[in-house]
């Protein structure tokens, strides 16, 4: 019941628009068409440039996300206003369907750019609403002119049966609509695309959008997870490995130095200081050091080492040497 009423209302609106178009002159129509064709060509070129440059598109979604949360509060009021009017809800539905189609196509074509498309779609919608509500009589008149010209073109197609030139014009419109989907800044292009694109089944569009939205966060978490895991683990292990051998080396070096420094400075027999000659003198393999004076006395007594109690074998040789100069 509701659907039938809506379709009837739409048909009535279209008939009204056609009548207004007939009133305008043919010359004015031709001039306007030429200007619009030139604008379309320039927009197509801009779209291509946007596609070519990938890095700037990556940065744009961040800016878009920042601005999106601010206009959230005014949304419910506008919806209420639209509902109060009779013919407006139909147009809103058509626009929403078009936006969803654009989003779906962008997801399928280039999954890498999905976040940018999300931001661009939302930003475009907001701009549309601002433009419609904020504009005065002039703005409303311009919008009516655009719509009237489009309706005229459609009428011609129906009458002639589809000539080649007219078909080319329609193809251009579709290309412009696809190109406009990528761009974010142009408000007019979004409006034109919304109007030109025919309404499609909203159910089909909503399903892929939801799926893609759900998949995005999963991919992001997976991508960041290994980095987070590796960064904290790698640093402390490296520092620990470096620090341990250094400390161990220092300890060993210190111990070695201390061992070297501990050398006997006095004779254990007479408690006199050992000079350079006495320090270098080592008569026994057991390394028992003593001064030359005490060594000589021991030789006169029993000739045994005080440390290990073994006889001094080499000492006898030293005796013979010492006897030499005396004679």
């Amino acid at each position, binding site marked *: 019941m509701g659907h039938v009423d809506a379709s009837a209302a739409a048909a009535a609106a279209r008939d009204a628009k056609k009548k207004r178009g007939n009133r305008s002159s043919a010359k004015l129509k031709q001039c306007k068409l030429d200007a619009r064709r030139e604008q379309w060509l320039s927009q197509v070129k801009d779209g291509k440039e946007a596609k070519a440059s990938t890095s700037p598109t990556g940065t744009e979604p961040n800016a878009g996300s920042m601005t999106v949360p601010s206009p959230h509060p005014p949304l419910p009021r506008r919806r209420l206003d639209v509902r109060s009017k009779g013919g407006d809800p139909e147009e809103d539905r058509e626009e929403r369907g078009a936006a969803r189609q654009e989003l779906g196509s962008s997801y399928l074509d280039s999954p890498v750019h999905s976040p940018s498309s999300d931001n661009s779609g939302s930003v475009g919608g907001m701009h549309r609403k601002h433009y419609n509500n904020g504009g005065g009589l002039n703005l409303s008149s311009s919008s009516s002119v655009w719509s009237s010209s489009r309706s005229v073109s459609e009428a011609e197609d129906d009458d002639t049966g589809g000539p080649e030139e007219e078909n080319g014009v329609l193809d251009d419109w579709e290309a412009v609509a696809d190109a406009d989907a990528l761009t974010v800044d142009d408000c007019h292009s979004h409006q034109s695309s919304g109007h030109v694109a025919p309404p499609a089944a909203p159910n089909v569009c909503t399903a892929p959008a939801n799926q893609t939205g759900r998949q995005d966060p999963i991919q992001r978490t997976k991508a960041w997870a290994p980095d987070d895991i590796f960064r904290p683990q790698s640093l402390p292990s490296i520092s620990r490995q470096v620090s341990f051998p250094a400390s161990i080396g220092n300890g060993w070096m210190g111990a070695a130095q201390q061992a070297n420094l501990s050398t006997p400075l006095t004779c*254990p*027999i*007479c*408690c*006199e200081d050992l000079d350079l000659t006495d320090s270098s003198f080592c008569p026994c393999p057991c390394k*028992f050091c003593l001064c030359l004076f*005490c060594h000589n*006395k*021991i030789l006169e*007594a029993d000739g*045994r080492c*005080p*440390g290990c*109690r073994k006889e001094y074998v080499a000492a006898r040789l030293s005796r013979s040497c010492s006897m030499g100069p005396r004679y």
Partner: protein
Amino acid sequence: MTSSSSPSRKALSKIACNRLQKELAEWQVSPPSGFKYRVSDNLQRWVIEVTGAAGTLYAGETYQLQVDFPEHYPMEAPQVIFLNPAPMHPHIYSNGHICLDILYDSWSPAMTVSSVCISILSMLSSSPAKQRPQDNDRYVRNCRNGRSPKETRWWFHDDKV
């Protein structure tokens, strides 16, 4: 009856005096456990109190040890004897003479009073029974004239005690 020996001693040489002063200084810094030096002005004669080690037959008992140093110490061994009463030990005679090889033939100039005291304490700790040597009576009878234990020809036959 059996008085301590009093041999005619010569004054310490310069080397012996220097050595003993250093040993006394080290003793005061870190004395061996169980020994106490009795302070006196005579550097040539030390009197040391010996306390038996815990867990041995002589635990809690105190004896006095007399150490006399010769002129050419440490080239010559000091004379070490127990003052009366002497402990009951298989190698210690009633007149205080000690049968220990390091005090006679096995002496080394590298040894000190501390090392000698530790050896004597070890000998007391490893005693199997409190008894006199078998030839105690005959030996004491021969040393009545104040003979020094260094003049005896010792026979060191026991490596355990």
